[in-house]
């Protein structure tokens, strides 16, 4: 009952921002949504299946540039001959996600056989390879200068600014306002799907592969195939996050998709909580909202420099802070923020009389001989 209320409350809160917040916050929030989608995917792979991936940025790039290339047209800007298929944008978005999955699938022989840290090293190669290709393939990516992102058009509804924006409750609905709702829908769908996977047969198989690979095999789990499937799924989540990312920023540069982005994603799932959807979302919001918060309130925060003066920039400060939080979580909150939060709420609930009691306390008595 109270749980349902909580969800309704959250839904209402999430619908409000376009009516109250400016473009800066909308963009930051949308970025957090895109990050959350990507982090959910990484958490299926790294959290649930124990497979380290440093290549998440590569698959984000595939989604972003896949969309741009599939939807964009042939054009010439700044002396660079750009190519594109000019497909309908919705189709391009779907195909971009599939493309990320397909490339993830090509990686399956490695993703299935390598375990844990060794996969991390193999995927590291992907990031570097990806960066190289992105800078070189100017016709697709626009090179170092980047390329404009064609706005998404879903059956006539265009997710772009227009000279005469629609008014919703007196508020002009431009690209970001519309994208906000698209982001919510995509995130909700992504979370719903991942919960379904993690809570049932495939999720348990992934967990068992993580905890005891040999036992998983002996119980009938095709270990390599299941790992490869998790890799493909995680790639598709990254692809979707990449598409949304491109739509939010309207221009994409290859620099974005470097190793640092992959590490950001790892930080998100560790900070938020490994192996759960809630953990991924929480971590993504934390990591990706830190920098905008610091940027906006730099003047009020002692050690962060406002633009132009000495000291760490908001971006650097954000990295430092989440680096510290990362270590603190590793040391003190092995289940991440999500785990800590759920422990806190269950403790509060236990204190309050009259509410549903928790499952039996965690000290099962030693089983006696009569069985």
């Amino acid at each position, binding site marked *: 009952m109270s749980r349902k209320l909580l969800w309704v409350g959250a839904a209402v809160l999430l619908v409000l921002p376009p009516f109250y917040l400016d473009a800066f916050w909308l963009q930051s929030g949308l970025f957090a949504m895109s990050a959350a989608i990507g982090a959910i995917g990484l958490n299926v792979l790294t959290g649930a299946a124990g497979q380290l991936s440093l290549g998440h940025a590569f698959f984000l790039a595939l989604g972003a540039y896949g969309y741009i290339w599939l939807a964009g047209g042939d054009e010439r800007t700044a002396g660079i001959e750009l190519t594109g298929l000019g497909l309908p944008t919705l189709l391009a978005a779907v195909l971009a996600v599939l493309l990320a999955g397909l490339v993830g699938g090509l990686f399956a022989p490695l993703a299935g056989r390598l375990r844990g840290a060794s996969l991390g090293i193999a995927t590291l190669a992907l990031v570097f390879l990806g960066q190289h290709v992105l800078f070189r393939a100017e016709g697709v990516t626009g090179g170092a200068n980047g390329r404009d992102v064609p706005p998404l058009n879903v059956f006539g509804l265009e997710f772009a600014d227009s000279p005469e924006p629609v008014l919703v409750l007196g508020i002009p609905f431009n690209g970001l306002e519309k994208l906000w709702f698209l982001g919510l829908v995509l995130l909700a769908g992504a979370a*719903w*799907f*991942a919960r*379904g*996977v993690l*809570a*049932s*047969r*495939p*999720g*348990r*198989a992934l*967990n*068992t592969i*993580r*905890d*005891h690979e*040999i*036992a*998983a*095999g*002996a*119980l*009938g*789990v*095709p*270990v390599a195939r299941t790992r490869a*499937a998790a890799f493909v*799924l995680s790639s598709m989540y990254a692809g979707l996050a990449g598409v949304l990312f491109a739509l939010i920023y309207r221009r994409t540069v290859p620099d974005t998709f470097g190793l640092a982005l992959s590490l950001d994603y790892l930080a998100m799932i560790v900070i938020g909580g490994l192996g759960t959807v809630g953990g991924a979302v929480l971590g993504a919001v934390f990591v990706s909202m830190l920098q905008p918060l610091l940027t906006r309130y730099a003047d009020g925060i002692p050690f962060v420099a406002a633009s132009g003066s000495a000291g760490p920039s908001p971006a650097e400060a954000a990295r430092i802070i989440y680096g510290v939080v990362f270590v603190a979580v590793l040391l003190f909150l092995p289940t991440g923020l999500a785990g800590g939060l759920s422990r806190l709420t269950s403790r509060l609930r236990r204190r309050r009389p009259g509410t549903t009691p928790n*499952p*039996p306390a*965690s*000290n*099962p008595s*030693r*089983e*006696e*001989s*009569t*069985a």
Partner: protein
Amino acid sequence: MSVPELAVRGLTVRFAGITALDDVSFTVAPKTLHAVIGPNGAGKSTCFNVLSGVYRATEGSVTFGDAELTKLPPHKIASLGVARTFQNLALSDYLTTAANLQLGRHRLTRTGFVTAGLHLPSARREERAQADKVREVAEYVGITEHLPLPVGLLPYGVRKRVELARALCLEPRLLLLDEPVAGMNGGERRAMVETIGRVREVMDLSIVLVEHDMALVGRLADEVTVLDFGRRLTTGTPAEVRRHPDVIRAYLGKSAEEDPAAAPRTNDTPAQGQGENP
């Protein structure tokens, strides 16, 4: 579902420098309980690891009915109805007992990434049906009260039972138990032996059991194979084996003259784990 014969023929397993199994042969007749005994390092666990596809045989064959197990990957062997437990527990500590048992249902269920992700009715239906089955097995093994708890919180003896229950969830035709009562106290031991005896009576399966305790083996086994330093010393009924001079010398050591059923030479404490092999 019929239970075929398990035939181990000329099985040899070599690791760098060590011959863990040397030309071992034995046959497990359908629906019997076959014990494999031998001192520490005799190659018992290695034998199980070959049977379940974890290790490759250097030479020899293992057939279960028509299937040649030495050529199959572990999950294919499991899908033939071969289930095993591990000497040093191999459970997912963070998952609940129920979820661990549900994994035992993996080979008998279908739900994949897409059906699970889309929350399709078939996935929910299957999940519910499996939960019922899991409950049934848990009751049978006497661990119902532990179903909602993470396995990591359970005492060692209970976890051993959880592993047995997980193996039973596979509905096996061949059950491989690697030292199922090792590290248990007297009461837990008796209960486990009683459960294994009941499984054997009631279910349609063959059991291969690795155990140190001669008295226990004598009570449960139809046939016993004795391994020593990777070689098979003898196979026979428990009574025959106990009288075999090589067995008395190799396995029971000097204490044999005093009491053949007494604690064997190498009564290790597997709770600490004893090898890096699974």
